[in-house]
């Protein structure tokens, strides 16, 4: 289980990094691999994981090898999609010539 200090307000880019990595992987991901991929230390990773678990963006899954893996939920995918959509809309607005 994740036992970390609660995260008051997540950094948008760090959170997006976690969600993007899980989305790209497309399958359950080892916690340590996700931590390395997100380029954060263990303590920070745990706080973000806890924050995402609380909001049901990800779930933890036990695997046969005894390691816990992180899975992106439909809500997590939707959250990442929303962030990507908004950033895309900024450039879609008419640019000055």
């Amino acid at each position, binding site marked *: 289980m994740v036992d970390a200090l609660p995260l008051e*307000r*997540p950094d*948008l*880019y760090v*959170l*997006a*990094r976690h969600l*993007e*990595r899980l*989305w*790209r*992987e497309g399958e359950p991901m080892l916690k340590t*691999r996700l931590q*390395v*991929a997100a*380029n954060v230390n263990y303590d920070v990773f745990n706080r973000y994981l806890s924050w995402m678990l609380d*909001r049901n*963006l990800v779930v933890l899954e036990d695997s046969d090898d005894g390691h816990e893996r992180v899975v992106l939920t439909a809500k997590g*995918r939707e*959250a*990442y*999609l*929303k*962030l*990507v*959509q*908004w*950033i*895309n*809309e*900024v*450039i*879609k*607005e008419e*640019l*000055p*010539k």
Partner: protein
Amino acid sequence: MRRNNLLKIVSATIVNVALVALIVKYAGANLTVLFYAAFFMSVTLWWLLFYIIPHLDTAAGTPKEVLQDLAHRLRSGRYRVTEEPGKLSIQITPLVAIKVHAVSDGANSEILYQADATPGGWTVLVLLFLFTRGFAGFPMALYHFLKARRFAEDQLRPQLPKGGVPRAKVGAGDIRDRLIDSLSEGHRLAAEAYEATQSRYEDRWLLLGFGAVLLWLILLVTLGFGLHSNLTSNPAYLLIIPSAITLAILAPSVWSTRKWFEPRIHDYREWAERLRKALEKETAHETTGSLESSAFELIAQAYRQVPIWLEARRKGSFSRESGAWMLIFTCAIAAASMAFLGIVLYSFTTWSLGLLTGAAALISLCYLLYSRLRKRANEEGSRTLKDWNYRLDVMHQKMVKYLEEL
């Protein structure tokens, strides 16, 4: 053939025949007439090749949907695409571009194409037109048209949605599509900023070279004709002194030009490369390496640079203020000619004082026009920056609020 195209061809032919008839009437039928007839024919064909808009196909969906879908597919194929209301502009080669128009046709859209050139392509076309009196411009325009037609037939037609709903509607929620679009737009803006700045840098070198030769000649003539001291009567000194003065005056300009341009060019090129690599990975469906920033972060960082890129692109665009720049250029040439004549004739006639005064007045006018242009450009630049930062802040607030409410 669409009625508009037919109208363009007929009107161009009428104008062409009328001009040749006028020349024959006033100059008689001779070689000169043949020359002008061929010239007008070349110019007319040149104009037609860029202004006729042939029909390509019909696609399912509204014009907006079809163009969005096509833009996405082309960006996935790593083409540089600019979206404009009712049309797309696609760069095919460094010189050739194509415009794709979509017009509503009931439930479908009629797709049309038009040959176009990139800024570099237009420069080559205009230079060819000026130096060959239009004759070499025509084959080049024909090349653009054929290249655009081939691209339309081979690349565009197979990608048009033939039935059902276009993909832009079906896959509107796809994350990868959005990332590709955002990365591609970022790459296009960074690459355009790089190309515009590189072009300005080359122009600046050309201008410095031209200025150096002009200054050297003026100094040579001034020393040769204006002064008759022992120092300048020696041919060796007559060459060394203007060269040394020219070098001393131009060296700081060369230094400041390099100092200003090179870091910017390097920066824009780096950004364009980073975005291109990310785009390639995304279109190849690769997963990014563990320590690289995410595509989302890269896009967010790149978008902070957009006002700078827009400004660089605007500064490199001669066409936007072409009228004012032509006026400045003409005044500068006239001022240089008057100053040159004034100096040469200084010992022979009092008219030279008038010429020098006229040159000074023209230089003042040039400066006045230039400072007005610069002031307006600075105002526009700060407005763009403010507007863009506002857009980014609104987006950021929206995202943070969404995360808080999760």
